[in-house]
């Protein structure tokens, strides 16, 4: 692999990993608090859609981003009320929301963009990081849209929050034993709601990254399983933040390899590369790679 190619590969890995990273960071917080959001896929799609609509309507990707979050919040709220207030089955409601959002965005896209599909949607542009982007080989890696750096920043902040703050302790406690935390006086229900809403915001950013960050367009069902992959990254990351970040990067690399390997003349079935993340995660939960320790109360409703 030549150095240029390596740099492109790294840059590509990062770009493909960022939507996952946003969503997985959000989902990690929620799962540490004991709530699985299968709806990450739907929330990302809604974020991509909201971002595109907002940017197209206002002409500003910044407002698009705001729009993305505003679009997803009601969906996250729905998920949260269903799982945390009504204690509905988390898996099933998540899948239901995904079906719902796919239908709504498809319909909405046709209603709003149908006639003018060629219009370019305003989006964020890549900006070189002063200094770093001039590096000889790795330069291209540091020419990215700012959302990329935000993703890493938020991930770091979440890592700090989980390990170093009182909020982090309580969230982790809720994921293991919500009853015990409730006895300590912390508002378990409110915190679980908050965790799901946070997942919503992060998924919105991940989705918006796809539509108005990486590519300035929206296509029907454009997340194409990225939300599920984010959940898989959390599982493969063994519910630890830095491992989840690594998992996202690894999954990004597996996808990026699909375009690097042909250039190197290496033949690996595409299907295998696409399957790789799921396969790795499966081997991990099967106990064949290390020991998995999911939060004890994961996916269990909390009855006060």
């Amino acid at each position: 692999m030549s150095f240029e190619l390596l740099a492109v590969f790294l840059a590509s890995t990062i770009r493909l990993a960022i939507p996952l990273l946003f969503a997985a960071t959000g989902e990690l917080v929620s799962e540490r608090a004991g709530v699985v959001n299968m709806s990450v896929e739907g929330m990302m799609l809604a974020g991509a859609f909201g971002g595109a609509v907002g940017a197209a309507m206002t002409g500003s990707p910044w407002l698009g981003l705001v729009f993305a979050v505003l679009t997803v919040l009601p969906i996250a709220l729905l998920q949260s009320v269903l799982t945390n207030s009504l204690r509905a089955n988390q898996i099933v409601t998540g899948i239901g929301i995904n079906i719902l959002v796919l239908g709504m965005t498809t319909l909405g896209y046709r209603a709003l963009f149908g006639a003018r599909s060629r219009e370019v949607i305003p989006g964020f542009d890549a900006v070189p990081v002063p200094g770093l982007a001039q590096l000889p080989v790795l330069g291209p890696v540091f020419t990215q849209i700012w959302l990329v750096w935000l993703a890493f920043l938020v991930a770091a902040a979440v890592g700090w929050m989980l390990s170093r703050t009182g909020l982090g302790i309580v969230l982790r406690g809720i994921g293991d034993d919500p009853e015990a935390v409730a006895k300590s006086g912390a508002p378990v229900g409110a915190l679980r709601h908050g965790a799901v809403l946070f997942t919503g915001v992060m998924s919105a950013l991940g989705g918006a990254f796809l539509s108005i960050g990486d590519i300035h367009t929206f296509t029907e069902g454009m997340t194409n399983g990225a939300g599920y992959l984010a959940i898989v990254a959390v599982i493969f990351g063994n519910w630890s933040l830095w491992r989840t970040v690594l998992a996202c990067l690894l999954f990004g690399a597996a996808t990026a390899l699909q375009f690097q390997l042909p250039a190197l003349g290496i033949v690996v079935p595409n299907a295998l590369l696409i399957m790789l993340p799921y396969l790795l995660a499966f081997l991990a939960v099967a106990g064949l790679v290390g020991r998995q320790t999911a939060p004890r109360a994961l996916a269990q409703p909390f009855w006060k």
Partner: protein
Amino acid sequence: QDPLTVGILIPGSKSDKGWMESGFDGLTAAQAKYGDQIVVQMIENISNADMEQALTQLASQNALVIGVGGQTQADVLKVAPRFPDVKFSIVGGNAGVEVANVAGYDVKQAEIAFVAGAAAAMLSETGAVSYVGGLEIPSIVNAGTEFGNGARYINPDIKYFESYTGDFDDVAKSKEATLAAIAQGADIHYHILNLGLRGMEQAAKESGTHIIGSYSNYCGTDPLYLAYSITGVGYQVQYAIDEAVAGTWVAGYKPFGLAMGADASDMIVCDPTPEMTEKLTEIMEDIKSGKITVLEG
């Protein structure tokens, strides 16, 4: 006289900037041409398991049913015998269609890909060109191969990169595939993609490279595009309707390609030099005459 009833099945999204949209454009053109002489029913975005039912419903209410894309072929062949009075046209159909009421129109994308390759080689400033295909299936792979052959026909030393994203509609992957080629010097990109094209556009825009479009005319409207090939998907839709309205519709396999004229298959460079035009015309003639042989597809 009763209007002709036309049912059209577009398996993907009719606004995909690619094959499907091109087919839809053909339909729109025919509607403009015939006004209320034709009545159209359309359905898009159909999954594999629902295709047969959609075709059956179209066939039961229309005199002419058009399937836009080879992926409809298997189901058309299944449905057609049940509706002997309905005419079926498959846009992007292939040899081997031998049902009495089915016509298969072969788009011959490889031919024009060869010409596109030649154009790309002439337009390239870096001596490197690239191609991104969706599914890694023969017709798409053959088009890629011929694009490379065409480029080498002009410049034997040209660097050529091709890759396949496994999905005509995946924008992120086609962007990354294009960026990988750009990193190795490619400055002109050709493609057989649908929605995925938007990813390629984004990559080209970010890197200041250019695209040869493969379905629609972008000359003058989008500086990213230096040229485009006419693949004739829309033309075939129109062709099917024309023939049916005129009462001259016939079943069977029909190759389109360069031999059917400029509406079916052509290569347009937006700002050509006279030499370019001359060379491209020469190549197209040579393909028609068999002096240059290209792969099927």
